[in-house]
């Protein structure tokens, strides 16, 4: 697998003080945003007992594991172990970091050390995230106006107008997740309905 940026969600789905599950290829991640808006992404596993950090909770500038409340700062270092309040946690206790950046309302993930920036998406605005239980080829078969592999683009007819659609592909084990964007002037409600119709057609094709 090549090292590249993969979209894992849309900015508006991760408000300040929230955590969500993310994925970079087969690696499961916890993606969170502190109270002041700082983003961080780590392997979805507390080093203590392996609990998913995406089930944790954000307080201020820290994320706590839901199992034993171990507190991690945005740099991934463990700051506090509630079972031993007087202890300063050793620096070796830290969550395993991933790179997470935000651009054009999209959250992108990559292993630490990516030299280039995530893809530039000009004149597009985020719509929604959609998960489908079919593969990419089926979707492209249903809507021939779309094309691409990691980033699917095309101009489609929505509500009597030609609108630019951009689908950021996030492969999953049993399907595919899209983070959808559209041209800035398009009606997002209509685009959202068009996307649902696309999903229905593609999944019906698989079922048939």
């Amino acid at each position, binding site marked *: 697998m090549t090292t590249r940026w993969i979209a894992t969600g849309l900015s508006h789905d991760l408000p300040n003080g929230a955590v969500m599950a993310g994925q970079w290829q087969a690696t499961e991640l916890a993606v969170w945003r502190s109270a002041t808006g700082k983003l961080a992404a780590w392997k979805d596993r507390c080093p*203590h007992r*392996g609990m998913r950090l995406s*089930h944790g909770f954000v307080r201020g500038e820290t994320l706590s594991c839901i*199992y*034993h*409340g171990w507190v991690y700062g945005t740099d991934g270092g463990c700051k506090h*172990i509630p*079972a031993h309040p007087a202890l300063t946690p050793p620096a070796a206790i830290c969550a395993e970091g991933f790179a997470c950046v935000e651009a054009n309302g999209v959250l992108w993930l990559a292993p630490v050390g990516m030299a280039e920036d995530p893809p530039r998406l000009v004149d597009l605005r985020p719509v929604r995230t959609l998960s489908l239980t079919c593969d990419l080829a089926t979707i492209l078969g249903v809507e021939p106006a779309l094309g691409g592999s990691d980033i699917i683009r095309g101009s489609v007819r929505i509500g009597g107008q030609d609108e630019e659609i951009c689908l950021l592909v996030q492969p999953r084990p049993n399907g595919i997740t899209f983070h959808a964007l559209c041209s800035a002037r398009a009606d997002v409600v209509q685009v959202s309905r068009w996307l649902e119709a696309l999903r229905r057609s593609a999944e019906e094709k698989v079922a048939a």
Partner: protein
Amino acid sequence: MITPQVLNEWYPVAMASQIRAGQRRETQLLGIPVTVKMSDGAVAVHGESDSFPVMERFGHVWTCLGSPAHDLFAVPEADQPGRRLVDVGVVRVKCSPLRAVENFLDIAHFPFVHTDILGAEPHTEVNRYEVQIREGSDEVWATKVTFYQPQAAKSAEGGIVTQYMYRVPAPTVSVLYKTCPVMPDAWDVIGIFVQPLTEELCDVWPWMALFDDVTPEAELIAFQQMIFLQDRSILENQIPRLLPLDPGMEIPTQADLSSIAYRRWLKKRGLTYGAQMVAA
């Protein structure tokens, strides 16, 4: 991994009262299909062609797929007058049977998983306690465990500092002794009997021997079910699913002494069903 040591242990496979009432339970043990039912007036456990030894104790049916290496462990309190024995039922959990036991030994999670019931911030500190492998019985014991609890039991009124003792008398069993809220000089006894269906799936049978003749049985069961369902949300989300026995995969602290002792005890005895031996 199924070792001879794993095969020669006793495991719970059913609630005795249900089988005695005529129910038949098709289940599995260590990945092998087994049936528990009444046969000629006695509880019987059999596989596709074999029949297995049966023991009825602590409200449950126990069996062994190999040659029992020893008798089933003892819980003397089960026969103590005045105690109420409660079979809670079954909770299926998609986790290693060993992770279920380890979680039962853990107190540091109380404020975060059983919030405002078995624990509450800021009372999060775990004081040093003692852990030993008892010679003779070859059991893991943790003693002198104390923890502040807002509602230690259904019968508790307000917060108390609860004292605990924990024991692991069999690889997939743990029994705890905790301060009885209505009789501070006595211990309430709560056990979990874990049936390993596979290495990553188990049926947990909680069981209680309490001094509480007031609380209706349904409420006692509901309280314990609530606690176990909160634990399940953790147990089904630990990575890896198997319990790592090699140090290095996870980072224990002093509060995890009982977990460390349990893992070493399992490893030394070859009780590795549900365990991960090599760091992934």
